[in-house]
């Protein structure tokens, strides 16, 4: 079956991961993980530390190479192309092009410290999408306003709190008009009192219909916002379903143990 046929009739599918295998040396971090995210869906990934959640997100936008399986972003094979029936590494330009449509929010923000908040946001649209600076700046200011940081446009990251930095990072990703946003424990590095302001932004995004994959330990957020919960443990998806199925009627004992432990 060719790539094309496989993806017909699934145009609403923004991310599709098939049997992803990822190893670091002898350690298998993802062992046949499947994932499907439809347009407008918010998928939350939960699971104990070291279960492979971060690695899964990083594989989706090809920050990590996968050892087996396939990942499609809107039907396009990510990171590889088919050549004589075999997969070979895709060109850098192609990988970058697909990545530019996938927003990634890091646990540790990773703002560019030598640029102001505004400069952080306009950097990629100007230099990657080659959009006119004036236009981008207008959009960037609107985005900073949206995340509640209109007054911090000219501040350097080190002058911002963790919560503010993470909101700038979200605005930075949004400035690329991504088709999907990936959040890797976006609030884990924050002081407890700053978590709410970031979750609020994420919640608003979800309500506006943004397609999102969210790795988080914030079960409240998962319950309120998401349409699908995935529980991972030891490199595999143990159980998945609606928030109600997972949070109220988990079938698997590992899921119940995990949920019992963190709530």
């Amino acid at each position, binding site marked *: 079956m060719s790539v094309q046929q496989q993806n017909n009739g699934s145009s609403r599918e923004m991310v599709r991961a098939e049997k992803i295998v990822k190893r670091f040396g002898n350690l298998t971090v993802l062992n046949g993980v499947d994932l499907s995210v439809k347009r407008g869906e918010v998928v939350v990934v939960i699971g104990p530390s070291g279960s492979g959640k971060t690695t899964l997100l990083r594989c989706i936008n090809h920050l990590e190479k996968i050892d087996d399986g396939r990942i499609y972003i809107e039907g396009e094979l990510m990171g590889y192309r088919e050549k004589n029936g075999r997969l070979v590494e895709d060109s850098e330009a192609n990988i970058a092009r697909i*990545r530019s449509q996938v927003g990634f929010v890091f646990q540790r923000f990773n703002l560019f410290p030598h640029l102001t908040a505004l400069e952080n946001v306009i950097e*990629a649209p100007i230099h990657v999408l080659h959009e006119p600076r004036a236009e981008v700046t207008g959009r960037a200011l609107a985005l900073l306003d949206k995340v509640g940081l209109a007054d911090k446009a*000219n501040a350097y990251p080190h002058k911002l709190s963790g919560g503010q930095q993470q909101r700038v990072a979200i605005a930075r990703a949004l400035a*690329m008009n991504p088709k999907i946003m990936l959040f890797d424990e976006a609030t884990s590095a924050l002081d407890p009192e700053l978590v709410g302001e970031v979750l609020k932004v994420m919640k608003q995004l979800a309500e506006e219909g943004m397609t999102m994959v969210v790795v988080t330990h914030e079960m409240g957020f998962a319950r309120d916002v998401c349409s699908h919960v995935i529980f991972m443990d030891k490199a595999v998806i143990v159980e998945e379903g609606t928030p109600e199925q997972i949070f109220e009627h988990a079938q698997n004992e590992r899921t119940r143990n995990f949920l019992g432990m963190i709530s």
Partner: protein
Amino acid sequence: MFEWNTVWHFLFADPNHLFLIAAWRTLWISVVAQLCGVILGLFLALMRMSRFPYLNGPARGYIWFFRGSPLLVQVLLLWDGLPRIINNPNFLLPDWACILVAFSLNEGAYMAEIVRAGITSVDVGQMEAAKSLGMRYALAMRRIVLPQAARVIIPPLGNEFNNMLKTTSIASVIGLLELTGTAEVYGSQNFVIFELLIVATVFYLLLTTIWGYIQSWIENRLDPNRTIKTELDQKSWAARMLGFGSPRPGGAGTLASGR
């Protein structure tokens, strides 16, 4: 008998500006060789850090060779060896070209290690964030990583240039009349070699001292505490770092305007 008159003459009263011209030679050779060395070092560092063996292998070998053998030998290899390698005894690189090539190649090896240390000092999350925004490697390097690495690269780069100013004396062995060569040639002709070496030393000290001031001024500009203070001015990062036309906050500018 030491002749102070001679020293005085060549320092202040030489109508031919013999040493001034020699100092100028020393200076431009240093500047050009350092610039070439920085550019070469940048590419060597990137090659050296590549995961492809056919890129990092040659870079390793290059750095190993040029850091592991004396510059003097490298100059002589180029000067005496090149005409023989290409098997044409009439082919001669002009002395200045030979020196520039040898110095640049050598400096490139040292700069490669300095640039590599600078790039390594930047958190890997910076490159990943840039890539996640759709930047390609070269763009991410240029716009995101190198500007941050510059903070770490520039202080040792300044020391390299200080060294370079003095190391140019090696050029005298192939007869290029920079400061040391000038002192030697004119000194031994007129039996005042010691006097002229003193003159050359004064010029070397002048060059390195002036550079020392420029260096500390640049490093002061790079001081993170300073960036915090200047962060409200809207200039580009490069302008801020090199301080083109930006008034010193709370400094002379405010005092002057208060008057």
